């Protein structure tokens, strides 16, 4: 288990990610994952989207979304595994995999967005 003192920070990230995810992910996923591929709504063109993501504000938004949503996942999934599977001896491994995954994902997001051409 982590030191007690880390918990408030991790919980704050979980909570912020939960709010962010609740407000924006359903509409993003509906459009990107269903409405556009299935042709219910005409998909935006490459040129338009590329220009949109070129905007620094848009990239900051995507970065914040990825960072917070991933830490939200890490925290919630960690406790789901603790509670659901009762594998206490693996708690440290679960901790490392969840937050390690979130950190890797955040670094990847930062790399992609920083080098976006």
């Amino acid at each position, binding site marked *: 288990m982590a030191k007690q003192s880390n918990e408030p920070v991790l919980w704050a990230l979980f*909570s912020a*990610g*939960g*709010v962010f*995810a*609740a*407000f*924006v*992910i*359903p*509409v*993003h*996923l*509906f*459009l*990107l*994952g*269903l409405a*556009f*591929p*299935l042709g219910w*709504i*005409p*998909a*935006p*063109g*490459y040129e*338009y*989207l*590329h220009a*949109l*993501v070129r905007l620094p504000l848009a990239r900051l938004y*995507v970065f914040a*979304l*990825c960072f917070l*949503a*991933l830490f*939200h*996942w890490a*925290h*919630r*999934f960690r*406790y*789901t595994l603790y*509670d*659901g*599977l*009762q594998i206490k001896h693996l708690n440290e491994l679960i901790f490392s995999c969840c937050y390690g*995954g979130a950190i890797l*994902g955040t670094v*990847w*997001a930062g790399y*992609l*967005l920083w*080098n*976006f*051409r």
Partner: protein
Amino acid sequence: MTETRQPARYTEYHPRWYRSRVSTWWWLARWPYLKFILREISSVFVAWFVLVLLLQIRALSRGSEAYAAFERWLQNPLIVLLNLITLFFVVLHAVTWFNVAPRAMAVRFRGKRVPDLWIVGANYAAWAAVSLVLAWFLVRS
């Protein structure tokens, strides 16, 4: 009764020693438990969405051909099915999140607590507004 004649064996009273075994599948026993686990599992689908979004950003960065390939990948029936399931879970996440909002933020106005229903209603209204704004940015034919 034959049992009463057997010599009694006493155990010292140590309540904390007693732990009843809980099955790994405890969360299937009752609907509220299952609902709890489904809500927690929604986080996996939040992470899946982040992955799809980052793949989109990567494809956009690599050029129009890479982006066309990404769009074809999104049309794969398995991916569509996965995204349909993901939509269910992210909406479940949003609804359960907004419904507990009054307990997370107890808003007071002129010394009185704002009714829970108003806070939930405000969250849903904000959700609708945010969704419309994002759709306005993304729906361009």
